């Protein structure tokens, strides 16, 4: 199916990736039934997840965003509406569960990975990994951790996959105006919200550029690329401003004229959203105006140097960048040798007796600020556990297949020992196990017969084993509702 177009099909890969982004949301609904702390099937998890991404996106600002608790709190009314009779505690837990799953807490990378296939230039089918995140955690200047929605999340949310930011915004704007003039307020609200997401996304692009400039002026093209971006953004804001002012006037009028309270409310909501758009554009504009100053200040700070006084390595260009570009396996030697050489020497600590005593008597130290998460143990499967060979098992099976008459353990042991002493041991162990057979388990596993052992007081006379000389017999297991044992057992008793 995938092969056929001949060359690599980029559109297919793009669509597969878009599809992959929605998988974590479906996964929530698939897993909700397995939650042990609540019967979560009443909740529509995918809806809550989309709502979560909504909330995070709306809270995203030029600099920061909402923290986990704020987002969870904003989700509560929506979750409560889905299951009003459940406790607020459970609602909060659901909010937290959805949020954690969208971040994918518990994995090292806190992200998602989907494998998709693609056909390369030579027509070979290859499996590739697509890594993506929906919500990311970032540290603010004050050290607090807050959330941001990724581009993937915003694209999934607004359903505008693989489109140009600006053209998408214009389309949304035209749609908005049309909808309002035709009086379709519900759709208009949707379009307005989409326009707002676009604005946020636009701001993100700019923020990334400015951040890069702060780190290194030369990494961003300030000669052509950024001025063009700034120009485009300013023109964009200008036209948006005009459009939004017009829309605002239009819907304010429609809000005031509306008779129907529902329509009035929706128009009022729309006024709020468009008002927010205007506010965001103003914010973006002030950032744009400050961008040039950031560049000049950073250029001053990161001033250019004269020729080196002696030959030395350019650590970034000649070491860091090439090492980052290497495959992981190849990157180990340079990374490791740099680490060895740059960390200096470790002096082995040798405690003196007096120091050791006080060391031992010292109260347990406070945990360090960075003690780390407890790593999950990685269990390797145990090596060969089979003590007896298949051959020995088969022989023991034959000996213990006793449908007709019960037999004494002593006789079985003697017969087994003639063939193989190890089989005698296996027979003894199985006889012991048969003393308290799990009939219920045998029925569940659909077994036909189960081996029973009974102690009638005869002591076992055997050179190797001691205890009672058990009476052994196979009993048929009925598959009826009571799983009754059939007649043979009575005979044994």
């Amino acid at each position, binding site marked *: 199916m995938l092969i056929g177009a001949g060359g690599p099909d980029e559109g297919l890969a793009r669509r597969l990736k878009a599809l992959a982004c929605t998988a974590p949301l479906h996964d929530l609904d698939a897993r909700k039934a397995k939650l042990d702390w609540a019967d979560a099937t009443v909740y529509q998890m995918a809806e809550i997840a989309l709502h979560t991404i909504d909330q995070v996106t709306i809270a995203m600002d030029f600099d920061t965003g909402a923290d986990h608790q704020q987002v969870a709190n904003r989700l509560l009314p929506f979750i409560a509406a889905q299951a009003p009779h459940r406790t607020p505690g459970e609602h909060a837990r659901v909010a937290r569960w959805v949020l954690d799953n969208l971040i994918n807490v518990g994995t090292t990378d806190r992200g998602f990975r989907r494998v998709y296939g693609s056909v390369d230039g030579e027509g070979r089918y290859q499996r590739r990994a697509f*890594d993506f995140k929906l919500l990311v955690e970032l540290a603010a200047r004050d050290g607090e951790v807050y959330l941001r929605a990724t581009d993937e999340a915003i694209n999934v949310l607004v359903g505008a996959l693989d489109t140009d930011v600006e053209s998408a915004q214009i389309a949304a704007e035209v749609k908005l105006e049309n909808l309002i003039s035709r009086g379709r307020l519900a759709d208009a609200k949707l379009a307005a919200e989409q326009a707002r997401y676009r604005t946020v996304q636009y701001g993100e692009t700019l923020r990334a550029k400015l951040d890069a400039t702060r780190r290194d002026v030369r990494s961003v093209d300030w000669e052509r690329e950024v001025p063009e971006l700034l120009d485009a953004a300013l023109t964009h804001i200008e036209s948006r401003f005009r459009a939004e002012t017009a829309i605002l006037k239009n819907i304010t009028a429609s809000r005031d004229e509306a008779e129907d309270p529902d329509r009035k409310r929706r128009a009022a909501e729309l006024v709020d959203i468009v008002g927010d758009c205007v506010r965001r554009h103003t914010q973006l504009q002030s950032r744009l105006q400050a961008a040039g100053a950031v560049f000049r200040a950073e250029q001053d700070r990161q001033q250019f140097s004269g020729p080196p006084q002696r030959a030395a390595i350019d650590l970034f260009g000649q070491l860091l960048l090439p090492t980052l570009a290497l495959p*992981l*396996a190849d990157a180990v030697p340079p990374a490791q040798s740099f680490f060895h050489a740059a*960390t200096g020497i470790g002096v082995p600590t040798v405690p003196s007796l007096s120091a050791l005593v006080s060391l031992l008597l010292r109260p347990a130290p406070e945990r360090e600020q*960075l003690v780390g998460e407890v790593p999950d143990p990685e269990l390797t499967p145990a090596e060969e556990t089979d003590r007896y060979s298949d051959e020995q098992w088969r022989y023991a099976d034959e000996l213990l297949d006793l449908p007709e008459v019960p037999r004494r353990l002593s006789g079985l042991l003697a017969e087994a020992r003639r063939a193989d002493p190890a089989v005698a041991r296996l027979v003894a162990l199985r006889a012991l196990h048969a003393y308290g057979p799990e009939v219920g388990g045998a029925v569940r596993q659909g077994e036909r017969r189960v081996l029973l052992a009974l102690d009638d007081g005869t002591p076992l006379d055997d050179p190797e084993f001691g205890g009672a000389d058990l009476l052994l017999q196979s009993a048929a297991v009925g598959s009826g509702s009571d799983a009754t044992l059939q007649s043979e057992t009575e005979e044994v008793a």
Partner: protein
Amino acid sequence: MSRPPAPADAEAAARLIAFGMRPKQLPGRDVVYADLVRRYGEDSGFKQLTHAVAAGLGLMVLEVSMQAGAVLAATDESVFEIKMDSYARQSKIRERRDTEKVLHGLVHLATAALGYPRPDDLANDTYIGRVSVEQVDGVVREACRILDERAARAEANNDPLADAPELEQAWRAYARRPAAAATKDGRLAADTTRGMVARALRFLSEQGFLVPVSGEQGGTYRTTPRYQVQVRELAADAAFDELLALDVVSVGGDGDGGGSLRAATSETL
């Protein structure tokens, strides 16, 4: 030297090395240390003796100066060697262990690259650099962005192959790792990149290579002359040799023209 070294000379040489093992002690603050450093500079017999004592212990003398003191490095298999296996998080799966090693190595590399952004800074004995947790993480992420853009320009599908994780490029592993993650008790999670950077910077300051300045930007430090010597005289070359062996860099730099802050990216300006 025709006569065997006097026991007193051997003791003095060993004492100089012992001073070097206390990275926070500096000749400027200790008269005995300062005298030994002076003697090392003036008396070539004493210098040789010091080197011999160090070699016997499994150490190398990188530099002895008034600014940095005696800067030592461990030779291979020396008791003084710091093993990466004990520094990086232990993992049973080999690929994951490699990933952890590479990430920690990159963090240390980025710390040095930020501390000495230009070759000139590394060469200039009076240069003092400044690093912070936020910036070190930023430098690597910035490099990841550059490589990502470069990969996007190549227009080939370069998503990593699903069944060959060891062939995935190192920058992808770094870029994928979250910068920060909230833990239940509000601490910084250790396996995030910022957690790793914070750990590296604290470790380096314990080794006398960095000095904490403030808690801003997740922790801000300044470099010491000792770190400069360590990176310039040993670490940079060691890593560079590995890269030369892999044939991914060439001597003389890849067209940086000498002294550029970001050699590989200067084409954008």
